[in-house]
Structures are given as structure tokens and as C-alpha cells.
């Protein structure tokens, strides 16, 4: 890289748990551990402030989920937002789905910039007027007011998941969506909250026979009958809802053959897929496991077409990563608008970008230094061997508490959002 970038650093009160651009990229939603959703809006081009073009400012904040207590199970239900997914925009209002471990909510975000004045039955401050005192009638008039952005919950989809919800995905039919937990996937209609269809159930009759769980699920971007789900064993199943109502049997099964001689205690854990994303074209999908990102051609189940190493140097640290639980970290991945590049996070506030066309990759850091306006991001390098060069950082110096799990790429432009614990970084190319 080394290109000039605009960047903004926005501080969040709590740990950011999800980041998602809407379909146009004008809105960016973040969810946090405290159950709050913060939505940023991109500023329009403004001739009087040329440098503010493309700046993201806070548009709306609301409390999406509250902590709950399940008395029957003696378990606390966290309010942490696991995923946010936008609905395609159909009118002036914006809609998004947000979910915690158990409950999915549909939120409507709408603008109000006018207010009615001159009511007959109530005063300007809202107090009811005595009807007998009214001697004349007037027509209320609409007056402009400061823009107010309101968020209201329109649907609450609850009680359909025994286990923790890890994914939601809006269907291309714009009417249905799926939600997935460790063992089941449910299909919902956006208008209907009191029931959902179970379309995948991998729970065995005897829990001791359980060998894998569902880790992520997503609908195909164009084919409304197709979805995929990934597993903790590194496999992906593609299902077609036309073939049967219950999609326990897959249509396609994607798995990379493993060399049995290379198997270790860690093999299964690091092969667990933490995220699966279709390309915008719908031809490919990308999976993220602990050490790599793989691109799969939907027409080829036998192996991925591309494998990109994210932080291979961690392979010799697996013991301590298992002890400090980092080996269970769930990294996400994302495509750029044209599917020519992919991005995923790592430790030490590093994130990695891979250009599929040029086969080049870069490691960048989301930090205070990089958040100076018009500062270019310097590529970083992790030193694995003996001699450490001046700018390199050694594996043992990496801060494993600074993890970038959530990243998002604008659907069209070269704008990326990177969540580093409780800081949100937005980086933008100077030249589009």
C-alpha cells in the first residue's frame, strides 16, 4: 500500500462486536458488547468542505438488546450484538436485523425533519386544551425542525434457538432470512414473528455422538433457494431448499483433503471455520479458519481455489494460544465490491488484505498513528526467524489482546471499517 488514506478513529464505549455496511455503503452499523447499535452516515460531497467528503459521522444510536436472565436454565443471556444485517432499502426508512445469542430484532431507522404545529386540541407543549375553551379552529402547519433520527423495534423474533445464535442472513427474496445457532438453522419470514421453519438440524439423538457444530451460515446473494453453512470441522455444506423442506442432507459438500500424517491435537480446532462469505458475484465463497482464508469455487467441492495465509507464524505458538483461549477466537473476513480483494483481521491490531489479481498481500495496523488525517498506512511485517529488521515486530512481541475480529468493506468504494476492540477505524482511499 503506502497510498494516501483518509482515516478516522472513533471511540466506542464498549467492545465492538459487529460491523456492517448497508447495501449502498452510505450507512455503517456497529454493534457492541453492551447491546448498543451505533449507525454512522457518510457525508455527502460538500464543496465548502472538500476534505470532509466521505467522512462518516454518527447518525443514530440506540439500545438494541438488554441483558436477560433465563430462570429455567439459570443462565444469563448476554446483550452483546453478535450480528447486524441490513435489509435492502425499499423506502425512505432503513431497516436492519440485529441479534444477540437468543433474540433477533428488526429495527426501523427513520428520519423526522418536520413537525406539526398549531394543533387544536393540545398546546404547543403537548398539554390537552379544554375543548370548551376552543372558539376557533385552525389548520396545523408543518414546520421544519432539526433532523431527528428515530430507531424503533418493528419485529422481535424470539424463542427459536436453544443454542447461541452465530449468524443471520437476509435472503435475496427480501422476504425471508435465516438464523443459525450451534446445531440448528431456522428460516423466518420478516413479517412473521411467532414461528419459524427449522431447515437444518444436526443435533444427534445422543449428545455424546456430537462431533461438530455449525459455525456460520449465509444465503446465496442471488439464488434465494441456496444457502451454505460451515462447521467446526472445517467443512462447508451448500443446501438447496427446493430439494426438501429439511435440509439436513446437503447438495454440495466442500472439504479440503487433509494429510493424515500431519494431524495433531490442534488440527481440528484450527480448521474450525469462523466465517463464511459469498462473493458479490455469487460464484465464489470465502472461509476463514484460524490461520488462513480460503476461496472456494462453488463448482468445485474437492478443494479451495485459493488459500491465503493470514498469520502462519502462529503455528509454532499453538500451545500458548490454546492456553490463553486465543485459538478459539472467531475472525471474520470480507470481500471488496468487485471481489478482487479480501480482508481479514489478526492480532496486535493488524489486519491483512489480499489482492486476488496481483497475488499481493499486505499487513496493516489499526492504531493511533494511522488515524492521523491523510496519513498513509505503513505496511507492517512480522519477523519469524532470527534476525529482526528495524521495522519488523517479532512474534513474541505481538499483543494477543489486540485482536481485529470484525472488518467490513464498502460495497462499492475503497472504504474499509476495522473494529479494534473498542475503537472503530475507517480507512479510505484518497483516489477512488
Amino acid at each position, binding site marked *: 500500500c503506502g497510498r494516501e488514506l483518509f482515516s478516522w478513529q472513533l471511540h466506542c464505549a464498549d467492545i465492538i462486536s459487529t460491523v456492517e455496511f448497508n447495501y449502498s455503503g452510505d450507512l455503517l452499523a456497529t454493534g457492541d458488547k453492551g447491546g448498543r447499535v451505533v449507525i454512522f452516515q457518510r457525508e455527502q460531497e460538500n464543496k465548502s468542505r472538500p476534505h470532509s467528503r466521505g467522512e462518516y459521522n454518527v447518525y443514530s444510536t440506540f439500545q438494541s438488546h438488554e441483558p436477560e436472565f433465563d430462570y429455567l436454565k439459570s443462565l444469563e443471556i448476554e446483550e452483546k450484538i453478535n450480528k447486524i444485517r441490513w435489509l435492502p432499502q425499499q423506502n425512505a426508512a432503513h431497516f436492519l436485523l440485529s441479534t444477540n445469542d437468543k433474540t433477533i430484532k428488526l429495527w426501523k431507522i427513520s428520519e423526522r425533519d418536520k413537525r406539526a404545529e398549531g394543533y387544536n386540541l393540545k398546546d404547543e407543549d403537548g398539554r390537552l386544551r379544554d375543548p370548551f375553551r376552543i372558539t376557533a379552529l385552525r389548520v396545523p402547519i408543518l414546520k421544519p425542525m432539526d433532523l431527528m433520527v428515530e430507531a424503533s423495534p418493528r419485529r422481535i423474533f424470539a424463542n427459536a434457538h436453544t443454542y447461541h445464535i452465530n449468524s443471520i442472513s437476509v435472503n435475496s427474496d427480501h422476504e425471508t432470512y435465516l438464523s443459525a445457532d*450451534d446445531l440448528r438453522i431456522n428460516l423466518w419470514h420478516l413479517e412473521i414473528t411467532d414461528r419459524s421453519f427449522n431447515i437444518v438440524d444436526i443435533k444427534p439423538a445422543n449428545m455424546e455422538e456430537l462431533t461438530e457444530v455449525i459455525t456460520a451460515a449465509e444465503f446465496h446473494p442471488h439464488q434465494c433457494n441456496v444457502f451454505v453453512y460451515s462447521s467446526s470441522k472445517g467443512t462447508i455444506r451448500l443446501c438447496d431448499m427446493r430439494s426438501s423442506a429439511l435440509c439436513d442432507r446437503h447438495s454440495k459438500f466442500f472439504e479440503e483433503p487433509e494429510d493424515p500424517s500431519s494431524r495433531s491435537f490442534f488440527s481440528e480446532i484450527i480448521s474450525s471455520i469462523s466465517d463464511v462469505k459469498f462473493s458479490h458475484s455469487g460464484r465464489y465463497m470465502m472461509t476463514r479458519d484460524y490461520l488462513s482464508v480460503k476461496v472456494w469455487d462453488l463448482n468445485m467441492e474437492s478443494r479451495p481455489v485459493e488459500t491465503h495465509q493470514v498469520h502462519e507464524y502462529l503455528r509454532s505458538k499453538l500451545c500458548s494460544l490454546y492456553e490463553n483461549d486465543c485459538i478459539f477466537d472467531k475472525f471474520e473476513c470480507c470481500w471488496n465490491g468487485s471481489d478482487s480483494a479480501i480482508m481479514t483481521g489478526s492480532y496486535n491490531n493488524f489486519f491483512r488484505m489480499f489482492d486476488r489479481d496481483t497475488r499481493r498481500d499486505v499487513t496493516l495496523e489499526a492504531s493511533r498513528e494511522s488515524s492521523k488525517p491523510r496519513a498513509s498506512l505503513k505496511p507492517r511485517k512480522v519477523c519469524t526467524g532470527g534476525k529482526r529488521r528495524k521495522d519488523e515486530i517479532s512474534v513474541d512481541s505481538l499483543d494477543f489482546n489486540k485482536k481485529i475480529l470484525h472488518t467490513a468493506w464498502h460495497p462499492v468504494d475503497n472504504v474499509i471499517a476495522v473494529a479494534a476492540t473498542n475503537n472503530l477505524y475507517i480507512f479510505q482511499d484518497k483516489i477512488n
Partner: protein
Amino acid sequence: MSQKQEEENPAEETGEEKQDTQEKEGILPERAEEAKLKAKYPSLGQKPGGSDFLMKRLQKGNYKSLHWSVLLCVDEMQKYFDSGDYNMAKAKMKNKQLPSAGPDKNLVTGDHIPTPQDLPQRKSSLVTSKLAGGQVE
């Protein structure tokens, strides 16, 4: 570490494709890490998620650290602590219908009736439960 690999496996180095060699060097760090882990926790089973180590994590109450199979068992275990639950589920069993492929609504109590043999050892709760009355014998 890579130096040590070369010393130990000179025969494997010669005559092999470079890719194979690189793969082997990639594998060995992982095996070395596995050996380290087993040296620290000798009771660790072959399958990840082996008992003692994970029971320790269970008590920490850190769900993220649990290997998933144990986590799900915890969920199942939690179901059976409420005796009211137990009795309700027992009553339900009498009128049991075949499960359909319909929505999984309100599957809080579940249909499976636990027997004393099924009940695993109770984990220490994150929150002290009012129902804590010890184990069902």
C-alpha cells in the same frame, strides 16, 4: 526450531519435493506445540476437549474457552437442575407427540427425560442458583 528439524530428519529432506519439505517443516512446529501442551497437562485426552483440562475451564465460567461439545453438554446439564422442570418434562412425556420438522419454539425444557444415570456432575454456576439443592441421586 527449524534448525533442529533439519538435524532430526536429514533422510526426509533429501530426494523430496521442496513443497513436501516445507509442509513437513510446517507440521513439526504443530507437533512440537502438541508435545508442549501434553507435557503441561498429562491428563489431556487425545481428542481436544478432554476432561480435566476442560472441567477446569468450566469452573472459570469462560464460555469462549470451552470446547464446543462440552459447552453444549453444559446447556443440557443446566436443564435438569430445576426439579419443576424435571416434573414438567416427565408429565410431557406421557403425552409425547412425534417431533415434527416445525419451528423449534420454546425448547427450553426439552423432551428428553433425564435419569439419574444421565445426570453428569453439576458444574459450579456463574450465578448462585436458588434451586441449588445438590445433585439428584
